């Protein structure tokens, strides 16, 4: 069988998790690192090999499509017959290869492998700091969770059906919970992990309900409706309900992918170790929502094309909102987190503007997957760079940075290139992918096109703001060199992955991506990529100009660190600045909702009701019985005279009654 090794891709990281989780504490740190990283290395090779097999060695089939391959598919649960159609509802766990899942395999294993290597350096340095505060070191635990995460994420992308996706979806959620709360003695970390889990769980509720609707009306959990010839008979019933079901599933995706207003967990999730932020909260897990919508795209287009556009509107608003907030953040990781939200929103916008129109309608799909790929690389790079800075500086806040370009040249260059990527300057990767998204938006509606162009200008601005305040401007160290630690370059085990990701991130835009991934899978799409750039050169020029304006503005305002404009703006518009800094109070709104409404209005009264009313009723019954017992006890006094008195009274009364009746 083809790809017969594929079960290893899921099994190896799971075994590594078990080994590290069960006996990790007895291992040396280096051994744990060795096991985790070796497994990931093997996985990386396997994924690359799979990609090679899939795209090149096997290649397209006779119809010119990349075939969907199911390497194995095991029955995990059997729900019996679906009530409407009598088809078997089976919950399978399997391994399915499509162009996008192969792409995701490569993305996940690449980033994960780099993060594994990088973490050796990072965690060692970081542990140094935490040990001072009496925190437990948890090197082995860290690698165990990373392995578990990798397994779950891989399981998610190779899912053969929507329920398998949900299963691994929950698992990545819990990995994220465990890793955000990694420094568990820290209050903020615990709080953030809880928040992340509950918010995503809330969204998953909708996902689950969506699945239930879907399975009921379609009679299967599978993605691929065309695979089953009998499906056409059932779909008329499903036409009305499918848009609802799909949108419910999208809400689940919006929770994971941090779309407004469910984005609140992601910035707080930055409490976790930085390599985790790079892997989970930038490159892989948070794009699960995008991947989910993309996997269901044929169904969306066929049965809910109009609902799909709501996805685009929500995402477009999120992109703008997050970019606005990112302009003011002082914590560099939170700034990057908002940037991630904004970029993921780009991907979802691109998916949302897809339509069933041949050729042009599918640009968005390809662009979205392309952006997912490039974004994973350069955003992971940005996070790892910021991790390097945090290790050296010992703080997340920009106030303690500045002027680092002299001390950390490699990190400086990597960060700089990553900023160019994300800002969309050719020939760096972000330009190609983002430009296709903007082109797809213009094709959908000019307003959305201009809107996304504006947001891309904001992106360039906030990224370079971040870059300048970290690496240029006034140096915190130089202001008082005697008492402050001198910044220095990070060790090779950390900058190695940086450089690797930097090279990949800069160059991956040149991959003829449309050749591999496209909505209908046909080979014509080599044209599509060029079509986006060259059919509308105006789009490309406009976005380059906007990006340069954004960068220029940031350079003017923040390069020297002495320009009075930022402070002046802050003073002029204190309300706006404060609101943006506080993320427009969305977090507070949710806080109010959970604490005041759910706890205050439901939980507490219910608990009170339970103790007082229900329990009270039963206690009252018990008391009533007892009191009644006490009351009638004197009647059984054993006093013969009393009995005789009652006996005579009774007899007389009865006689009287009888007399009256007669």
């Amino acid at each position, binding site marked *: 069988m083809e790809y017969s090794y594929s079960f290893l891709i899921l099994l190896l990281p799971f075994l590594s998790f078990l080994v590290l989780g069960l006996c990790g504490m007895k291992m040396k740190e280096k051994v744990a690192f060795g096991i985790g990283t070796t497994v990931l290395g093997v996985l990386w090779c396997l994924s690359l090999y799979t990609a090679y097999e899939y795209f090149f060695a096997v290649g397209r089939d006779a119809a010119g499509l990349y075939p969907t391959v199911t390497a194995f598919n095991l029955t995990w*649960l059997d729900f019996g017959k679906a009530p409407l159609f009598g088809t078997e509802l089976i919950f399978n766990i399997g391994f399915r290869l499509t162009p996008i899942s192969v792409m995701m395999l490569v993305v996940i294993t690449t980033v994960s492998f780099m993060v594994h290597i990088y973490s050796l350096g990072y965690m060692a340095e970081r542990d140094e700091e935490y040990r001072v505060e009496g925190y437990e070191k948890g090197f082995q635990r860290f690698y165990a969770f990373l392995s578990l995460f990798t397994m779950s994420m891989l399981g998610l992308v190779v899912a053969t059906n929507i329920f398998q996706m949900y299963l691994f979806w929950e698992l990545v959620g819990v990995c994220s919970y465990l890793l955000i709360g990694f420094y568990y003695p820290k209050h903020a970390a615990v709080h953030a992990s809880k928040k992340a889990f*509950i918010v995503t769980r809330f969204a998953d509720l909708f996902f689950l309900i969506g699945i239930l609707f879907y399975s009921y009306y379609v009679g299967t959990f599978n993605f691929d409706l065309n695979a089953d010839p009998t499906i056409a008979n059932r779909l008329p019933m499903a036409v009305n309900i499918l848009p609802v079901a799909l949108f419910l599933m999208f809400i689940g995706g919006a929770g994971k992918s941090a779309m407004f207003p469910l984005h609140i967990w992601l910035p707080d999730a930055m409490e976790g170790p930085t390599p985790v932020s790079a892997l989970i909260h930038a490159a892989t897990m948070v794009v699960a929502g995008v991947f989910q919508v993309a996997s269901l795209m044929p169904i969306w287009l066929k049965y809910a094309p109009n609902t799909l556009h709501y996805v685009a509107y929500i995402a477009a608003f999120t992109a703008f909102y997050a970019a606005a907030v990112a302009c003011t953040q002082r914590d560099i990781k939170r700034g990057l987190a908002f940037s991630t939200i904004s970029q993921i929103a780009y991907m979802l916008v691109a998916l949302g503007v897809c339509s069933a129109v041949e050729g042009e309608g599918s640009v968005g799909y390809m662009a979205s997957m392309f952006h997912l790929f490039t974004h994973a690389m350069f955003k992971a790079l940005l996070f790892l760079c910021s991790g390097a800075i945090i290790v050296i500086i010992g703080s997340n806040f920009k106030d303690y940075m500045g002027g680092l370009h002299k001390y950390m040249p490699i990190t400086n260059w990597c960060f700089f290139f990553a900023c160019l990527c994300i800002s969309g300057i050719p020939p760096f990767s972000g330009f190609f992918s983002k430009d296709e998204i903007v082109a797809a938006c213009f094709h959908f509606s000019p307003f959305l096109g201009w809107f996304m162009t504006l947001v891309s200008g904001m992106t360039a601005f906030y990224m370079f703001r971040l870059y300048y305040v970290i690496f240029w401007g006034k140096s915190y160290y130089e202001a008082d060199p005697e008492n402050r630690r001198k910044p220095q370059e990070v060790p090779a085990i950390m900058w190695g992955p940086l450089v690797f990701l930097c090279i990949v991130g800069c160059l991956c835009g040149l991959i003829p991506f449309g050749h591999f991934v496209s909505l209908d899978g046909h080979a014509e799409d080599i044209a599509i990529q060029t079509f986006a750039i060259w059919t509308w050169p105006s789009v490309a020029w406009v976005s380059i100009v906007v990006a340069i304006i954004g960068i220029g503005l940031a350079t003017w305002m923040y390069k020297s660190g002495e320009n009075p404009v930022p402070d002046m703006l802050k003073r002029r518009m204190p309300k706006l600045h404060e609101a943006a800094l506080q993320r427009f109070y969305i977090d507070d709104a949710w806080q109010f909702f959970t604490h005041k409404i759910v706890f205050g209005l439901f939980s507490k009264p219910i608990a009170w009701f339970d103790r007082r009313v229900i329990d009270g009723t039963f206690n009252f019954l018990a008391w009533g019985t007892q009191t009644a017992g006490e009351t009638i006890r004197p009647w059984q006094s054993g006093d013969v005279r009393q009995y005789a008195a009652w006996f005579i009274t009774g007899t007389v009364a009865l006689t009287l009654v009888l007399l009256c009746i007669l």
Partner: protein
Amino acid sequence: MLLGLWFAKNDNQVRGVMVVGASAILGLAIWLTVAFVQMRNAGNTDLMLFTYSVPWFAPLNICYSVGVDGISVVMILLSAVIVFTGTFASWQLEPMKKEYFLWFVLLSIGVFGFFISTDMFTMFMFYEVALIPMYLLIGVWGTGAKEYSAMKLTLMLMGGSALLIIGILAIYYFSGATTMEVNEIAALHNIPVHIQKIFFPFIFIGFGVLGALFPFHTWSPDGHASAPTAVSMLHAGVLMKLGGYGCFRIAMYLLPDAAQQLSWVFLILTTCSVVYGALSACVQTDLKYINAYSSVSHCGMVLFALLMLTRTAITGAVLQMLSHGLMTALFFACIGMIYHRAGTRDVRYLGGLMKIIPFLSVSYVVAGLANLGLPGFSGFVAEMTIFVGSFENGDTFHRVCTIIACTSIVVTAVYILRVVGKILYQKVPNPEFYKLHDATWDERLAIGGLIFCVAGLGMFPLFFQNIISEAVAPLIGHILNAAPIAAL
């Protein structure tokens, strides 16, 4: 079943006897399961296997008749696991060890007897046998307001059994049967519908009290909070399952028309249970109260699924009984051990335990994650089966109930993570806690065994699902296909 042989010779080597006995039971239960599956595979499609019947009170046709089907097999297996691990969990119990174990064994006899009986009256008798020791176990070896709790628990459950005996006698009388045997009465199926409708609530509520049906659940938080660890485990793990099992086996199976027609009333009550229990758990401060309310929610889910009257949902209900039994036993075991060490169960005074007693803390996290339905543990399997099964009912009423019940998975996450975050993570509030020691070998054995079962059921559910599903099929077929009989 070989039950009586080992409680007679309780002497100073109580522990030894208990271990041998519990292992023997576990071995027997596993052997029973294997033999059962073999017979099924061999093509034996009888409703009950291993049947055996001895009359013991001829005037009322009461027989000691036993037999097992797929549902009782897994329940017996569950009970055996819990008894086995419960033995280890009460290893270090101090005063009057012998008496404690004597009652403990009596309790488990009741439980096993209940699950294997196929005679209504024998079932009822074993039910009572299981209840009485509970009073003493809580009243004598409990903590806190133990007399109050024990009294409350016993009185409420006795109230339930008063309803039960009325219902059982009514079934016997109105069916005109010459037997108390459940399957034979079901086969007769000649109770008029209006009579069924009168007595269905009696039996359903009678068993429902034990299954923590809203609003008859209030014995559960107090009872669990006061009970010693192993008793909590056995009680929440197995005894509450008696309720669900009885509801299905007697109320719904013998009164099928009423079950169909009245299910909506109880569906509303159970939906309440599910959400209500979960929401109440969010604001409790005593660990055992939290878990007790969580049990109310999960057991509510069992009854909820039973009332959905679809094969998948009922399979899910039995899976949920199994999974909740294991999870909650694990939970109570962890809580008991933490309490034993820290001397408090109040979440406000606990904190940072992860660092001090890592084994127990990790187990607690595992229990918590299993409870909130993480894939890979049994809770996920059971809940998903229930939800998919419930959704097979196409009408709006069932839909709404299902969706409301689904929200409990979010609320569950809220209360579990709240507790985990408070007691295991963050800083240690009390320097005394640094002196605590981690689990001893007997505790590790108990917890490890339970985790193994929870994860095993969660990862390879198909085996059990098939056993249960095959057993459910004829029963649900009977309930749904029973043509209503015209009123007299």
